[in-house]
């Protein structure tokens, strides 16, 4: 139990919070056929974070969040500019943008590594959930012990804040989000400002991606956005139910993935532990595979009601 408090409580909570947050937003991305925005945004979190480090010299979370947020904004503006001014197809515009920015991030990282910066390319890609150890978490009593609670890894509070922010965003704008997901022209005609909502949604995706970045890495987070929501889409025709299913799938992926990575192999008699973030995403992908094979609504048309 004490081992669990110290080594697993925080990573697991972080994993659950990230999964739930990403899956919540993922519902709207999947409905709008904009899933790949999460791909683009999560790739450019890297240059944003590196640039903000080089500029401010700290890895304080506020600076990193700001850096990644700015790079997300730059990405969206670049994609739109290339698409509109250059008349380039959207997916190609996205490809040009995020690969170039990601390359810039890797270059900055490698060049600055020579001057003693410690952000690791591998960790940026894979994430490092396991490192969130709560040294003072020595037992259940620590949960109500203020001095122990202060030493909780700061990532936990950050992830919780972002989860709350995203939840509030979805609750406040739910009608706009739903309208824009089904009929953006109608939404525009009743002045629901679909373009603004689009931008806000992308910003929220960026915020969630950045929060997840450090823990689970930049590519695995894409699975957290898409897989649970896509699987839920194949299970039901009702948006409310779809969101509920996506949350359930996210929770199952986070818990079982974390457990499999940490103790699954030990139970099998092999003494090794695997990447927790990788395992969580793998489980999410397997759930999607099952939904593709047997989901009750896997072939239906795009009919979807709001009840």
């Amino acid at each position, binding site marked *: 139990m004490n081992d669990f408090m110290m080594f697993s409580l925080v990573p697991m909570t972080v994993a659950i919070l990230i999964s739930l947050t990403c899956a919540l937003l993922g519902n709207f991305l*999947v409905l709008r*056929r904009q*899933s*790949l925005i*999460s*791909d683009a945004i999560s*790739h450019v979190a890297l240059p944003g974070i590196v640039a903000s480090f080089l500029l401010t010299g700290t890895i304080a979370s506020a600076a990193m969040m700001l850096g990644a947020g700015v790079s997300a904004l730059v990405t969206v503006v670049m994609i739109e500019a290339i698409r509109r*001014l*250059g008349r*380039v*197809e959207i*997916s*190609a*515009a*996205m*490809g*040009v943008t995020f*690969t*170039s920015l*990601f*390359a*810039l991030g*890797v*270059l900055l990282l*490698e*060049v600055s*590594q*020579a001057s003693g910066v410690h952000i690791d*390319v*591998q960790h940026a*890609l*894979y994430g490092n959930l396991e490192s969130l150890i709560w040294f003072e978490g020595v037992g259940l009593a620590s949960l109500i012990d203020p001095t122990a609670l202060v030493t909780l890894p700061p990532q936990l509070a950050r992830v919780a804040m972002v989860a709350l922010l995203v939840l509030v965003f979805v609750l406040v704008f739910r009608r706009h989000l739903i309208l824009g997901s089904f009929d953006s022209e109608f939404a525009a005609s009743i002045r629901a400002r679909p373009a603004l909502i689009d931008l806000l949604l992308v910003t929220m995706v960026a915020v969630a991606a950045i929060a997840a970045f450090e823990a689970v*890495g930049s*590519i*695995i987070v*894409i*699975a957290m*956005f*898409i*897989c649970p929501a*896509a699987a839920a*889409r*194949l299970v039901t025709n009702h948006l409310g139910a779809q969101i509920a299913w996506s949350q359930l799938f996210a929770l199952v992926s986070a818990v079982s993935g974390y457990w499999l*990575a940490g103790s699954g192999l030990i139970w099998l008699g092999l003494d*090794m532990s*695997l*990447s927790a*973030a*990788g*395992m969580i*995403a*793998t489980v999410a*992908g397997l759930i*999607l595979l099952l939904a*593709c094979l047997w*989901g009750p*609504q*896997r*072939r239906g048309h*795009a009919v979807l009601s709001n009840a």
Partner: protein
Amino acid sequence: MIEDWWLALAFSAGYNTTLVTLGAMLLGAGAGMIGAFVLLRKRSLVSDAITHATLPGLALAFVLIGVVQGDGRWLPGLLLGAALSAALGLWLVQWIGTRTRLGEDAAIGAVLSTFFAFGVVLVTVIQSMNVTGQSGLTGYLVGSTAGMLAVEAKLIAVCALVLLAAIFVLRREFLLVCFDADFAQTQGINTWRVDLLLLLLLMAVVVIGLKVTGLILIVALTITPPVTARFWTHRPSRMVALAALLGALSAYLGVTLSSARESLPTGSLIVLSAFAIFLVSFLAAPRRGVFASLLAHQRFRHRVHLRQGLLSMSHNEPIFDGLTLKLLRRAGYIRRDGAATPQGRAAARDAEHEERLWALYRRLYPGDALHREHAGLEPIARVLPPDAINDLEQRLPPKGEPA
């Protein structure tokens, strides 16, 4: 540092660097070429999925080879593993896209991230295994041209050459399918098979390119040069050739730049070179570039203003718009005080006559007029043949009556 770059640019920075440069250039050409077809088929981001899907196969092959011979680094085996898992990922993207109601975007995103995640899990397996050469594996993530052996460079060069030849041989079928899939079908071409072939070749490019740019950045080589080429030409065959050229150029610049100093990552520099070329084209390409578009827009605006000004003059209406006045003055149609010059009066009469001809044309042949972009702005003699204009002149009602 600059001198080192010059040496590399001139292919005289040593045998290994030269070999790597040539191999990367061949690869860039192949990637640009196949990417052009993929862009024309509007499936650019499929290569994103394929690339990330190589990781689990790569890792699994590494484990198997490592168990057999103690060292996981054996390039042909690793490439085979990567190719197999990329093929599986590709098939899954197709399958999810056609058999379920999820869009291709969700299929691509789900496959790329899940495969990559599973690959990461396998990489952690490798890290706890007792095989040598583990550090070599990370080179596949962001590329490690600097650490490339001469044998590997040769293998990449030969593969890329074979690939390039294959794409060259198949270019007609590809172009036909990309240009008009339905027409290709009537010509007895199996579109489905050509598409599959296209994706298989794309996969081959990705797999061969792993070692050069790394698995996350190879996707850039298949997207950016073709998009750039599109700015310079709208003939598909020329676009394919140009994309190949630009791909090779990006690789050449990137590899040589990175050989100038120890810590520079090759893959990133190749991608950034490609982006620099894209940026220049995006801004300055003669027909589709941003500057050219702005100029064309400006010219169009001037023409509209000038024409409206002349029409107002012919109706003796006052003109208040500043730009219109300026344009009329510059053309010598009005004097500084705003009075019409003899030239101006003649031009206004012509403009009005032309306007009446256009109005009649629009009334008589509304369907045709719709198809002519900006009908009424071009001089009518440039758009319609002389006999048609003659015919319109005959039927033109006397002045004063509506046309």
